[in-house]
Structure formats: C-alpha cells, structure tokens
C-alpha cells in the first residue's frame, strides 16, 4: 500500500538569506541575491564572469571555527540547512536506525580539492591537510549531516548535476515507501563559486556575461536572457511518513506526493529539444501521485535563463499539458537566487511547498520582455493557488541528460 509522505521541516541558506524565512520574504518581495563578487581571485585569474549569488550569510558566521576548518564549504551549507530543518521539525526523538539521509551535491568539494592542489604545488605533500579526502568527497555533505543528527538508516548521495537534489527528494520518497525508515532528511548543497568552475562554465558559454548589471542577469523566459548565474547554498527537507508525523504531533507543510527520474541519452550537456525525457519524468511523477494533469495548479520550473534550456523545458511541459499549460501559473525563482546547481532542486522544492502552504506563488523577476516562443503564464507578483488538494510540481534537469521532477500536494 502506498504511504502518504509529508514534509515537516524546512531549512535553507541561500543567496537571499541565511534561513528559510529570510530567503522566502526576500523572494516574495522580488529581490535579487546576485551581486558582484568581491574577491581577489576574480582579478588574479581574470575570470570572465565577475558576479554570482553568493550565500547571503557566510557559513563562518554560523558554524564554529573547527566546523569551518573540517568541512568543505558545500558541507558547511549542508549542515546549516539540515540543522535548521531538523529544529523546524521540532528536533524529534527518532530511532537512529530508521532515520536516513538523502543529500546531494552537483560538484562536491571543489574548493577543498583546488586549495589542496595549490598547497601541494606551493608547500609540498606534507602540508596537504589530512582531512582533504573526507572534505572533498561528494558524499561528505550527507555524511556530515548523518553524523551531526545521528542518522543510522543509511546516508546516500545522488549525483546528477543540477538535477541532484530533486533526485535526492525522489529517492527519499521511495526509501520511505519501502517501510525501512520513518524519517529522512533530503536536500542538496553547492559551493562552487570559485575561479575554476566559473571559468569552465563561462568557457562553454553557459553563464550570463552581464557583468555591469548582476541583479538583472538571471532572467528566465526574457527575450534578452544570455545564460545562467551561479549560486551557492544548501537546502534541507525533513520528510516522514504521515503515520510517524501524526504520532509525534508534527506540524505538516505539505504532502510529498511523488517524484521521478528519467534520462535523455541524447547529449551530454544539451537538453533534448523535444523534451521527451523531461515530459516522461513529469508524467511518471503524476502517476506516482495518483494525479492527472488537471490537478497541477502550479509549476516551479527549472528555467535557468539559458537561451536553449528555457525553450526545451517549455516544449516538454507543452508535451505533457497541451493547451492546459497556458492556464497553469509558472515561476522561475532562479531569477532571484541564481542557479544553485546541486542545491537548486531542494531550494525550489521549499519554494513550491511554501507556495502551497502559504498560498503565495513567488514571483519571477527580470521578465521585462517575455520570449514570444515561451507563452507561459509566468507569475511576476505573488499569486495564490486554488484548490484544497492543489498539486504543484518542481522540475530539475542536469548535464548528463538527467531529468528529475517532484510533486507536492496541499495538506
């Protein structure tokens, strides 16, 4: 029998704020978290893109000096968001063996790796930190959360580029359905605003080059969009079976109604222009949710602000929803946060959950001149969602042809 899975805790540190509430309020008021990067390495390496969505509150202001020293920045964001989510869920007493972690990153400990390589070159192998390997490994953030909160029911890391944390939430859904665990912390983190990833994404012409106007650079669906903007941070959801949540009297934000993952097998970076893989992911998610396309009352789109990506996603949605699509309010919150890569899906899942819970779809900013090839109903000022059992979906796609979709239902 299918169990009902519910969301009972939220945590996030993002370019908009150091917690969920600040992030959400700034998102609703149409603010941008994108700024010029004030760091000496921009000039040193002549990095062609000089702006990004850096975390609004540095991790060092929240964690202890020892935690900062022993954790890669990606794991620092992971821990901050997981602790907030766990506290938000009421810091429940749980059976450690029935508590799991599904926590992702797109890139992993890139700062640690590159800093260590610099140390190796400049000071030799003996000065390379002994903690380098556990800090750079992609499962490091999940392991840090599992250790901190004593989760012994399995700690796993899905890695699928920018689809990673949506896949993690989908995996958490499936894990809870098996009955092996009662409660899962799911989400993702990223801390890759470093000269090398910025240069590499710029080399493939994926990033916006709007150096003179950072806050206007992330503009999904706008005719003048020219690429995505890198963001960083972490986001966590506490997910549990309804039975477990009700037994402990937890507050419930929404139901996690389903999630699915598909792959394109089309091109390593380009989305399938027909969007068939993405469409299959949406349909599989709806099937898992026991829902039809008519039940979907809101879409938080992947919409990264790249010229081809936004159209490919539109084509996929058109394939699924047909004429109905024109009446579904869509938002592209990367316009405010930038693209948090492996954390993006978890951040946007939180926005989707809060849109249902607080009845406010957050706006898409910078939409000055909507691309006529993408005739979506884009929400540009907060709007409500109708329906006692309204369903909302959040999409994430990643290099490698990964498509991941999750659906939340008003509870």
């Amino acid at each position, binding site marked *: 029998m299918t169990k009902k899975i519910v969301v009972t805790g939220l945590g996030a540190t993002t370019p908009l704020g150091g917690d969920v509430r600040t992030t959400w309020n700034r998102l609703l008021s149409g603010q941008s978290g994108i700024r010029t990067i004030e760091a000496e390495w921009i000039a040193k390496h002549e990095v062609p893109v000089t702006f990004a969505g850096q975390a609004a509150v540095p991790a060092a202001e929240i964690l*202890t*000096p*020892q935690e900062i*020293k022993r954790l890669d920045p990606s794991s620092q964001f992971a821990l901050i968001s997981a602790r907030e989510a766990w506290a938000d869920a009421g810091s429940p007493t749980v059976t450690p063996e029935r508590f799991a972690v599904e926590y992702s990153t797109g890139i992993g400990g890139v700062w640690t790796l590159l800093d260590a390589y610099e140390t190796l070159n400049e000071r030799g192998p*003996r*000065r390379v*930190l*002994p*903690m380098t390997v556990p800090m750079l490994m992609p499962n490091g953030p999940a392991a840090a959360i599992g250790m901190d909160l004593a989760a012994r029911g399995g700690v796993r890391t899905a890695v699928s580029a920018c689809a990673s944390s949506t896949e993690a939430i989908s995996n958490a859904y499936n894990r809870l359905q098996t009955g092996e665990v009662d409660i899962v912390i799911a989400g993702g983190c990223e801390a890759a605003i470093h000269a090398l990833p910025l240069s590499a994404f710029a080399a493939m012409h994926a990033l916006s080059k709007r150096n003179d106007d950072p806050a206007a650079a992330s503009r999904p669906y706008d005719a003048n969009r020219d690429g995505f903007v890198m963001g960083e941070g972490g986001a966590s959801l506490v997910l549990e079976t309804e039975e477990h949540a009700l037994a402990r009297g937890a507050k419930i934000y929404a139901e996690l109604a389903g999630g699915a993952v598909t792959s394109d097998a089309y091109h390593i970076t380009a989305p399938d222009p027909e969007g068939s893989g993405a469409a299959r992911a949406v349909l599989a998610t709806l099937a898992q949710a026991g829902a039809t396309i008519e039940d979907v009352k809101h879409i938080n789109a992947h919409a990264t602000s790249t010229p081809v990506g936004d159209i490919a996603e539109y084509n996929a949605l058109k394939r699924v929803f047909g004429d109905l699509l024109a009446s579904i309010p869509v938002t592209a919150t990367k316009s405010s946060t930038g693209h948090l890569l492996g954390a993006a899906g978890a951040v946007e899942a939180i926005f989707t959950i809060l849109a249902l819970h607080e009845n406010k779809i957050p706006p898409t900013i910078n939409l000055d001149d909507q691309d006529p090839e993408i005739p979506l109903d884009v929400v540009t000022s907060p709007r409500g969602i109708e329906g006692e059992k309204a369903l909302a979906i959040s999409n994430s796609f990643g290099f490698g042809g990964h498509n991941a979709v999750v659906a939340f239902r008003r509870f």
Partner: protein
Amino acid sequence: MAHSQADVLAGLAEIVNDETGIATDAVQMDKHFTNDLDIDSISMMTIVVNCEDRFGVKIPDEEVKNLNTVADAVNFIVSAS
C-alpha cells in the same frame, strides 16, 4: 633556536585549540591526546605539521606514534629545537 618548555606548552595549546576547539588551559602536560583530549589521528597530523611550522622543528612520521601525551610532544619539541 631553543624553546622553553613553558613556551612550547603554550604554543601547542594554541595549536590544539585552533584545530579542535579544546580550551587552551585543558592542554596540560599529563594529558593523553587520545584518552583525555579525544583528539583523533587526523587532527593529530595537522597539529604535528602546525607544530613544525611554529617551532621550526621536524617531527618524523615514525616519531608521531610515540607522542601519546602532551608532555611527550612538548619534550620532543624542546629537545629537537
């Protein structure tokens, strides 16, 4: 350059505090790194390298396993400096 035992103890305590957060006044000569201070082998390697930099000494890897107590480390550094 020779260092006094008191200087080395104070410097080591700062290094231990920086790496682990253990209060400097808890780093006493009779304390065992593992049993009393709960310092793991990975932290110990970082502490050793930081001691080398601070006191200008070389602490060979094969010597590290003999540095069980704070006194072992302080005495080794004093005699090597």
